[in-house]
């Protein structure tokens, strides 16, 4: 049977992994390739690199990270952040990335999803959605790293992304991001039911219990976490053991 996935997320700034409690205080957390290889060894099911600089000058640095990762990491990995054109996508895939996450560019130019899926296959087009509660049981799509409201309804946008050819949804709750109080389960479940694509829950995880909730109550196919793994609060192994004890099917290697 298909297992549930645990996906560590690495924020990359100018070729280095960074972590911080807010965008001002970034702390260097090492070489992305080394960290990626470590997570692979520990049993991570997949990895996501988010290029938080995402300027075009920096693109070459990110392509190099992707190329070096592809030499050492033999699990799937996704690249996101500032990719705007088919050519941007092509470069990352050719360098060795398996999937591309589109966020702002997909909202501004939905045809990019369609063209990307047509050119490279739906399996490599992940649509990342930053969601914020607008009314009880309603969520709005935000772009530009959460700074700009779009007026779009999250459930409608997720369905549109699927119709355009997206292969997966990476769903981040902005209300929960950084809070460590758990995923927004109602949102995750609503999106998971609105599309027939795999959904990755993100934003708010603080404990292993939260991972389990995202996969069961949230009905997500995969859970993304950053800080609990980076700060070594839990290892991937511990997370998997916990989930297995809770009766959730996870990969053991």
């Amino acid at each position, binding site marked *: 049977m*298909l297992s549930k996935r645990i996906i560590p997320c690495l924020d990359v700034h100018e070729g280095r992994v960074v972590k911080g409690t807010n965008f001002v205080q970034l702390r260097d957390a090492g070489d992305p390739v080394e960290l990626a290889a470590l997570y692979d060894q520990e049993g991570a099911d997949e990895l996501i690199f988010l290029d938080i600089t995402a300027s075009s000058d920096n693109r070459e640095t990110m392509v190099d990270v992707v190329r070096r990762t592809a030499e050492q990491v033999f699990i799937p990995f996704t690249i996101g952040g500032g990719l705007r054109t088919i050519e941007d996508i092509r470069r990352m895939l050719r360098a*060795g990335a398996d999937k591309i996450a589109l966020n702002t560019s997909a909202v501004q130019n939905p045809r990019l999803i369609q063209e990307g899926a047509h050119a490279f296959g739906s399996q490599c087009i992940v649509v990342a959605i930053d969601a914020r509660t607008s009314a009880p049981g309603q969520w709005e799509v935000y772009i530009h790293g959460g700074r700009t409201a779009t007026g779009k309804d999250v459930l409608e946008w997720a369905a549109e992304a699927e119709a355009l050819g997206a292969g997966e949804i990476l769903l981040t709750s902005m209300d929960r991001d950084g809070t460590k109080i758990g995923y927004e389960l109602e949102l995750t479940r609503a999106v998971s039911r609105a599309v027939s694509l795999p959904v990755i829950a993100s934003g708010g995880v603080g404990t292993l219990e939260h991972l389990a909730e995202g996969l069961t109550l949230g009905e997500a196919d995969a859970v993304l976490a950053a800080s609990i793994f980076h700060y070594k609060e839990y290892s991937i192994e511990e997370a998997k053991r916990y989930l297995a004890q809770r009766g959730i099917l996870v990969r053991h*290697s």
Partner: protein
Amino acid sequence: MIGIVDYGRGNLRSVEKALEKVGFEATIMASPTELSTVNGLILPGVGAFADAMQALGQGGWIEPLTQFARSGRPFLGICLGMQILFEIGEEHGEHAGLGLLTGRVVKFPRGRKVPHMGWNSLRLEQPSHLLEGIPNESYFYFVHSYYAEPGEKKDIVATSDYGVVVPAVVGKDNVWGAQFHPEKSSPWGLQILTNFGKWVNEDDTLSSHRS
């Protein structure tokens, strides 16, 4: 030397790096003229069935690939590269595949998420050299929206359960296919590539003895 077919559809670099990692030399081949220089072949592929066949046709690959398969040298299709080994694909209408294995490639029935994406466990249906050392129920990374229905049950070497039984490894004589991505299925996927590489090398020894 293992050749990787470059017809513009597939993550060639990952396959090449994974083979390197397990100690085998690989070359990415942009033209069918290079087929004579390799002892084993990997046909990768992502995307749509008809589109892949069209790209192979445009590159002049179809007849040379068929001849390669007939030559008896080890041939491994990965993901879509496995699907196009069959006779017919039902993705966006009926399209002819390479026809090296009998059967069709069909859409998943309703009632599950598509693509089938993530790590699924393998059920070994029969012993094979490609799966040597692979434990039953070990996990591999899949991502696909269609699956094979081989005409011959004996061509099914391993399966996975996704509500329907998905042929995960198929093979007949020297022509094999993996529906999952061995190059992305650390650690057991690398074991399969090791087995394939060894097979290619052994086969090479045999052929040089013969000549």
